[in-house]
């Protein structure tokens, strides 16, 4: 494996091996050892052409715990804001000897473009491209679900997950549907028809417009952020109405199965898609998702930067 661009490129076995690797790395981070020499001398560039806190910090923490050198590069304050193209930026990074580039870009397919081009020789990690994919987020979500509800199994067979809200603009939803279905979970998308993408019927998920009829039957409720910055037209009449039909508040949470968990990829619009009581409740694993993100991203960097494909067995 050289790049991580899309969940579609991963086999079930590869996905599980990343989760297993993350599991061992999480135990390392829990212990006395916070720093491993594994990627000493390797350079990882965080190329963030779109705003991000969680993902960038998470990749930075992951790279640093593996002793890699990290260069942070954001569009603001760099030559990208002077109009430098992706190609010129990539060639600059190549000239500096980057072993991997973690890229966040507002254009769908930017990571693929970077990987397919001959502009640079390093690994490319997609950290979110437009409304296309966000594979590391899906992996950390699957990791979190497996940890809470996996019953010691390696996949998610038999679990059901509702992904609720702005599916249309969500790369998190797209990656999660692909990965969770690949791991055997049953996925239901819940959204108003205006916030579902064209062609959603070909996704490996069922669709519902009625949150209340879905919520008592799922093990995981994954709320999506309403992406107002990507909304160029009216998708729903007003915030209060959206919140009433598709928001998760404490009343609605009461009808969840015992043991079911609430997830959110962040950043949250408290009061819109999720109420503050739910976000801070004992069912919420939202901060744990952030913690797990570091372990999962360590696993991704480990797998990509240590040549060849993953093989089983220790020693």
């Amino acid at each position, binding site marked *: 494996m050289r790049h991580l661009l899309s969940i579609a490129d991963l086999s079930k076995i590869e996905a599980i091996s990343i989760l297993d690797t993350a599991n061992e790395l999480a135990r390392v981070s829990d212990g006395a050892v916070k720093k491993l020499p594994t990627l000493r001398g390797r350079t990882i560039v965080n190329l963030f052409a779109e705003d991000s806190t969680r993902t960038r910090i998470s990749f930075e923490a992951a790279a640093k715990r593996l002793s890699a050198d990290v260069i942070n590069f954001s569009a603001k304050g760099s030559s990208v804001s002077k109009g430098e193209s992706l190609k010129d930026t990539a060639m600059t990074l190549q000239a500096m000897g980057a072993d991997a580039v973690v890229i966040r870009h507002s254009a769908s397919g930017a990571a693929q473009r970077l990987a397919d081009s001959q502009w640079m020789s390093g690994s490319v990690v997609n950290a979110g491209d437009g409304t296309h994919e966000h594979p590391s987020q899906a992996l950390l979500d699957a990791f979190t679900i497996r940890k809470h509800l996996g019953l010691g199994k390696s996949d998610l067979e038999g679990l059901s997950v509702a992904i609720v809200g702005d599916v249309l603009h969500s790369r998190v939803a797209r990656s999660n549907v692909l990965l969770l279905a690949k791991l055997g979970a049953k996925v239901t998308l819940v959204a108003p028809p205006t916030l579902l993408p064209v062609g959603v019927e070909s996704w490996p998920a069922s669709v519902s417009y009625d949150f209340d009829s879905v919520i008592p039957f799922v093990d995981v409720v994954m709320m999506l952020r309403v992406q107002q910055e990507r909304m160029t037209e009216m998708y729903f009449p007003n915030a209060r109405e959206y919140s009433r039909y598709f928001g998760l508040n404490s009343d609605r949470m009461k009808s969840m199965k015992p043991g079911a968990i609430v997830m959110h990829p962040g950043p949250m619009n408290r009061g819109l898609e999720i109420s503050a009581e739910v976000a801070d409740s004992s069912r919420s694993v939202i901060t744990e998702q952030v913690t797990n993100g570091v372990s999962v991203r360590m696993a991704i960097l480990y797998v990509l930067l240590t040549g060849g494909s993953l093989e089983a067995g*220790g020693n």
Partner: protein
Amino acid sequence: MSVALSAPDIKRALTRISHEILEKNQGASSIVLLGIPTRGAHLAQRIASIISEIEGVEISCGTLDITLFRDDLRLRAPKAIMPTTIPPSGVENRDVILVDDVLFSGRTIRSALDALGEIGRPRTVQLAALVDRGHRELPIKADFVGKNLPTSKSQSVRVLLSEIDGRDEVSIEGEAN
């Protein structure tokens, strides 16, 4: 393929190593056994239970994965990471005995020393190996050896243990040249 150690040979070798460990460390009070996964971890377990039988006390025994500390990570396919479990007593000021199945280039042990250094500062670190096949690439030697097996570099030594493989056997594969 020729069999170098049969099941009874392995049992005798581990019993002798157990006695040698006790003799060298004047008892079992300060020792911590750390097996290197996969097969070293099982060997450490076996040695721990033999020592407990002899001395009548529980022995601290754990595993130490060295994958993340290897010096050939850039050259080879990534290995799956195995669990590291350090006994609650820790390694600080203890006599740590690393246990592995085959001692070859010595690079695994170098990695193990690095991994151990991140966990604590043992009083001594010793090394037990079921088989020493020579061809060291680093200045490392074992304190306790089950059997010295002269091999050529083109051969491979295969260790089977009943916990994983269903039976106990050490064999040499390939022709000597």
